[in-house]
């Protein structure tokens, strides 16, 4: 993409607002296409099937919660969606690209450009400032210094933390750390925002703040996938996919 396009998009209302341009073939709004996904772990003597044939689609702009008890396979599914892992069988299409057969470095590039991770334990670099943490995906995306800082500041503004950008994670509260992580997830304008138990390490009040932030980001057009085992958190999403024993148990539109 050219710089001009970036500039244009940044001048528009929300920096992280997503356009919903219909594509010519009408299929491009399918962002995630999972077709009969299997994930098998070879544990020496026996094979453990974490997922047995999962299929679903997520459209651009959706707000999906994936729930399920522990051991249900939802973490495995999250790792697959986030391109941290590849399925043993089946096809995974992310934003028009078949991710299921990519090698490590191609996956790294997809993670860099298509996926924004938000983790339960924030996973910020302890020794780096908030600003540097947010810059990290841009560094690996090859964005030069000046523009990188500007983009990172934008993202921190979005989560209302720009005044804290020179602080290190240990100088920030849990909620603030999670907001830094969200800014980091957003900074590269990924196709999906993938949050794994984002409120798991936060108190109730802060959890609500974070969930409100997700809501706002969704309203700006971001596609959000939330992995959680908490029902009240899942209830904030618009669609809930329940996983049990490696299969989709329920897939319902709740809003």
């Amino acid at each position, binding site marked *: 993409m050219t710089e001009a*396009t970036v500039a244009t998009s940044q001048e528009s209302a929300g920096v992280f607002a997503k356009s*919903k341009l219909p594509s010519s073939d009408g299929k491009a709004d399918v962002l995630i296409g999972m077709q009969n996904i299997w994930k098998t772990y070879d544990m020496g003597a026996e094979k453990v099937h974490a997922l047995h044939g999962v299929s679903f689609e997520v459209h*651009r702009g*959706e707000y999906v919660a994936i729930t399920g008890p522990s051991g249900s396979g939802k973490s495995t599914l999250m790792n697959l969606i986030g391109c941290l892992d590849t399925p043993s069988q089946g096809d995974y299409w992310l934003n028009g690209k078949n991710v299921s057969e990519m090698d490590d470095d191609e996956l*790294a590039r997809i993670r860099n450009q298509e996926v924004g991770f938000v983790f339960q334990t924030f996973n910020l670099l302890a020794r780096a400032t908030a600003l540097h943490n947010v810059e*990290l995906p841009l560094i690996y*995306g*090859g964005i030069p*210094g000046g523009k990188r800082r500007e983009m990172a500041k934008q993202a921190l503004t979005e989560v209302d933390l720009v005044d804290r950008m020179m602080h290190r994670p240990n100088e920030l509260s849990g909620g603030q750390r999670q907001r830094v992580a969200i800014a980091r997830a957003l900074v590269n304008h990924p196709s999906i925002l993938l949050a794994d138990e984002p409120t798991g390490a936060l108190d109730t009040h802060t959890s609500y703040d974070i969930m409100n932030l997700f809501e706002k980001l969704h309203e700006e057009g971001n596609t959000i996938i939330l992995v959680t085992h908490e029902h009240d958190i899942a209830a904030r999403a618009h669609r809930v996919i329940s996983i049990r024993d490696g299969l989709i148990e329920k897939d319902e539109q709740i809003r």
Partner: protein
Amino acid sequence: MFPRSNSLNPPLEPPAERRIALPARLRSLPFFRIIAVWEAFLVALGSLRQNKLRTGLTLIGIVVGVTAVIAVVTIIKGLDQTVAQTFSSQGSTVFTISKRPRVITSREDFIKFNRRKDITEDDAQAIFRLCNTCWRAGLAANDAVPVKRGNQKADTVALRAIAPTAMFEIDAVTINAGRFWSETEGNSGQSVCVVGSDIITNFFPYESPEQAVGQDLWAGGHRYRIVGVLQPLGKIFGISRDERIFIPFATYKKDYGLNVARGAFNTSGALVVFVQTQSADQLETAEDQVRAVMRNRRGKTFKDADDGFALETEDVFLNLYASATSNIYLVTIGVAAISLVVGGIVVMNIMLVSVTERTKEIGIRKAVGARRKDIMTQFLIEAVMVTAIGGAFGVLTGFGTAWLIALAIGFPLLFSIWSAVLGVGVSSIVGVISGLWPAWRASRLDPIEALRAE
């Protein structure tokens, strides 16, 4: 509720999802790699700063290795210059004729050389007379004698008996105070002497060279009047070349006799003939003439392999010196290689620890898009930084060591920028080699596993 349907959204903007990402082709250009490499550099710097003690301990092996090399190279370079200056003072126009060569490497040779006839004054006379390409010639005998002046005493001081006075020029010494003895004084065996500057320092501590001229000195139980003091020549290998006394050869013969047969191991008093040509071109011709004269005098025929005398230029010393220093170089390179290998293993070990400690960080970086080579670069840079810093320290301590030794034994210090570059360069290569395996392991970490680490 925000509508998900596309149709409700007016197409005001271009597609947003690819706004930032650069094409892979562009991202692999060196410029964009530099961004990740610079990040890796900063991370490495931070990590080294974080673990100062560990970094310091890691460095020791590298520092020792580089110090050894730098110190030895600097010292030998300094000695080289001293040696070159010393021997070029007599120059490549001088050669000597003696009974035994100055360097004897085997017992058989030693026995063989000892059976030779001594060099005599007659030999010297014959050479002076018959060698027409010889420009200057002289003879000298060296001895060591006790010296006394008032309360100042020394057990052994070098005594050099020379004739004629042209030997002063062959020896390339110059007068600082007073004068050389005259040819007449020399030939008539007057008790006169010319002394090196250290003799004044040691025996006339409160007097200047000028004041010492005209005073007497007791050497080997004989009294000599100082007629001249020489310009200092300086030290070589820590040994002074200024602590010696020159007396006329005739005087020596009168006072000590010609002690050419003091024993196989004592060459004191043995005659050495010195010949100097006007230019280096004539050296070979002069050598041939002298060799012919001497072989004739020793009754050697064409068939005899041994000359019956030793004809040598100063190259003998230079060759001996070169072979000695090349051995020192070899030993040093061995020591340095061992300590660099050990240092490299230590660095590798520490890097493996560092990778384990920072598994989580690697996971985070991979999750946000770091590729294998990004992680690899990061740890390689860290390893190279450790060893390069170690190398730099080694260069400094090596120069420091050389400086201290130079102070102690006295030779010029030649700090070579190349040895510094080499020191840092070699240790950086050690860093690359020892960082390769830990960095490779780090780059292969599974991001899921890595993120789970604490």
